[in-house]
């Protein structure tokens, strides 16, 4: 088979994997032989027609698979062309792309061809060629396949910057229903193993600098949203638990895109729940960078996100007792909770106010989004000039105006809500 055809099949089979980030590996540019470096913030090299960032060459080693997970394009029962890379072939292709600055590195996953151990061994062979013969020192993200011998995962982790185990679906029941080959236990087992490998390696790197590094860019996971009945609250709680118990760097969500006609799954003409995915990412950001906890954002009575407001605005509007905050006095953690203030502007505020008290002009120049923040802040005890209206007008002003939100919000209400009525609907959702 031609390389071009293989690449097409094995890219097509890998495209539903979400993670394409190349971050967290530290800023490393080894001095010696070889090629490649990592940038801690990650680098995007392109954006595909769906607007997603392309950072890594994301392919499968093979799309042959013994599993028959119902939501997956590569399931055994699916009639689709199959291919496999030779380890040499993949290593060489990666280098050709990397040398031209097309990519930041490789994201390698695999179907389970034969057994998890065999599939992992093939991946290891390709990565050993890359790290060895090609002396590649760029970014590698490798997928750990549930059911693989821990010793093989240990080898994989020494070759990769990041490892991930897909949790696939947000609950044990859904897993049992749709992925009969996988269980919570054989997914969380390797996750815990990788966590321990990372901790151990970090400790030994402190003791002696040249100790081998095990997945220095940490571990991530992903789950499919919208194929099964879990609520946003359940998903967010699970996410929070994964960060706390397994020290994950990232949890990725993937809006389910129907790939199979199946009575257990949404119909083939179902649109992927992109707004829901978007809200989950916003909330995920709040967990990781804004010191929020899952049960501050949602609870048993409000288990789904407000379609009209982002989770932070929604939270703020539900806590009128905390606002307005005096910008020259409020703690960093509280500033972070103000809509329109992000970690960057919160840090800038805290640094700048040590040099003198801040007014509204200063805030604007600092980069605070006043359109949102003005309802929640005071500068030297004063509201911004010309601000009128109460809490309800704040809610109207904070409505998520992104085209994604608008179209999906309208369709949620069966097309009966006119754009100008969204304001009233948003207030009712609070």
């Amino acid at each position, binding site marked *: 088979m031609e390389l071009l055809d293989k690449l097409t099949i094995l*890219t097509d089979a890998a495209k539903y994997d979400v993670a394409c980030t190349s971050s967290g590996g530290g800023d490393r540019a080894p001095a010696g032989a070889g090629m490649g470096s990592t940038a801690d913030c990650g680098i995007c090299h*392109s954006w595909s027609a769906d607007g997603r960032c392309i950072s890594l060459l994301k392919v499968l080693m093979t799309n042959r698979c013994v599993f028959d997970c119902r939501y997956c394009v590569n399931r055994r029962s699916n009639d689709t062309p199959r291919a496999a890379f030779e380890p040499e072939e993949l290593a060489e*292709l990666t280098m050709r792309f990397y040398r031209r600055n097309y990519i930041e590195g490789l994201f390698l996953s695999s179907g389970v061809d034969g057994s998890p151990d065999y599939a992992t061994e093939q991946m290891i062979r390709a990565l050993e060629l890359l790290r060895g013969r090609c002396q590649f020192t760029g970014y590698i993200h490798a997928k750990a396949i549930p059911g693989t011998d821990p010793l093989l995962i240990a080898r994989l982790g020494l070759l990769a910057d990041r490892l991930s185990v897909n949790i696939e679906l947000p609950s044990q029941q859904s897993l049992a229903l749709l992925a009969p080959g996988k269980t919570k236990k054989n997914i969380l087992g390797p996750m815990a193993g990788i966590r321990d490998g990372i901790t151990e390696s970090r400790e030994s790197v402190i003791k002696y600098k040249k100790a081998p590094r095990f997945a220095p860019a940490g571990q991530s996971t992903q789950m499919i949203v919208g194929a099964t009945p879990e609520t946003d609250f359940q998903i967010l709680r699970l996410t929070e638990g994964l960060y706390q118990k397994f020290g994950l760097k990232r949890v990725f969500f993937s809006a389910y895109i129907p790939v199979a006609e199946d009575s257990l799954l949404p119909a083939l003409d179902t649109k992927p729940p*992109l707004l829901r995915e978007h809200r989950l990412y916003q909330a995920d950001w709040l967990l990781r960078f804004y010191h929020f906890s899952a049960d501050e954002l949602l609870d048993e009575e409000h288990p789904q996100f407000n379609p009209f407001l982002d989770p932070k605005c929604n939270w703020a509007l539900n806590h009128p007792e905390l606002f307005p905050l005096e910008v020259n006095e409020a703690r960093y953690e509280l500033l972070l909770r103000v809509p329109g203030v992000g970690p960057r502007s919160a840090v800038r505020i805290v640094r700048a106010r040590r040099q*003198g008290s801040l007014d509204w002009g*200063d805030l604007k*120049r600092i980069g605070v989004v006043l359109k949102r923040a003005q309802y929640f802040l005071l500068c030297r005890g004063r509201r911004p000039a010309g601000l009128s209206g109460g809490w309800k007008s704040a809610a109207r002003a904070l409505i998520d105006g992104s*085209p994604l939100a608008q179209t999906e919000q309208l369709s949620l209400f069966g097309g009966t809500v006119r754009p100008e009525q969204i304001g009233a609907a948003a207030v009712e959702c609070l």
Partner: protein
Amino acid sequence: MGEHSGEAVYLRENVTYLYDGSFEGMLCCIFEAFARRERPSAISTGEARQISLFEERWVESLPIRANRVFNGLTQKIGPGAARLVRILYLSEQPEKELIALDFVRRAFQVGRGVTAMRGDPAVASASSSVERALAEAHQYKGLLRFSDVGGVLVAEIEPKNRVLPLLAAHFCGRYRNEAFLIYDRVHKEALIWQDRTLRFEAVDNLTLPPVTGEEQETRRLWRQFYKTIAIKARENPRCRQTNMPKRYWNLLTEMQPEETEMPGLPAVR
């Protein structure tokens, strides 16, 4: 911070400076303005010169003076402030010289804390120009494309800011054992890395030989990957364009149509 602190100093404004366009020259203009208690109405290079009603004065580039300004900034204010002025010089910001002057003046009024005063008008306008230049450099770390031309890697870019010096450490570290050239079409400069040595050169024009079969095939594979990785059901051209503005497209391999013959690099817009 909203109002300016410090004693009011009368600064003469009815003068304009001309300089040679170099970083040293810009620092000398700052020196001149301090020495003569002036805040010129414009500081421009020979090319960008505008008709002025005021006295025009040529400011000579003298390394001693430039060093005094730069070292003074580094020692009295901090390396962060010196770096800010250096990058401001590389930015495309109109009137960057005056912005630099206002920033340096503010810096010597306030002292070490100045870079933290992100809300101060003088600091904010210097910082935001610098942030834009750094953001463009970061974009190019991803969006720059090399072609293999007889074993040497060649890339062309069309940046608004003079990003080459901001890209050097990244690319020289990454491709440490390669020979490569990055050509800035707008500012007509090239970054050259050869035998583990870095140099910058003014280059008027770059013509390249046709690409080889291996280069051609790699581009084809990359375009195919690019096309295949997109998910149809999620198509979102607006989101793509926000992240990857159109001005980058004509130098991106994946945004070019399939090559029928064997041209060199993608043509100039």
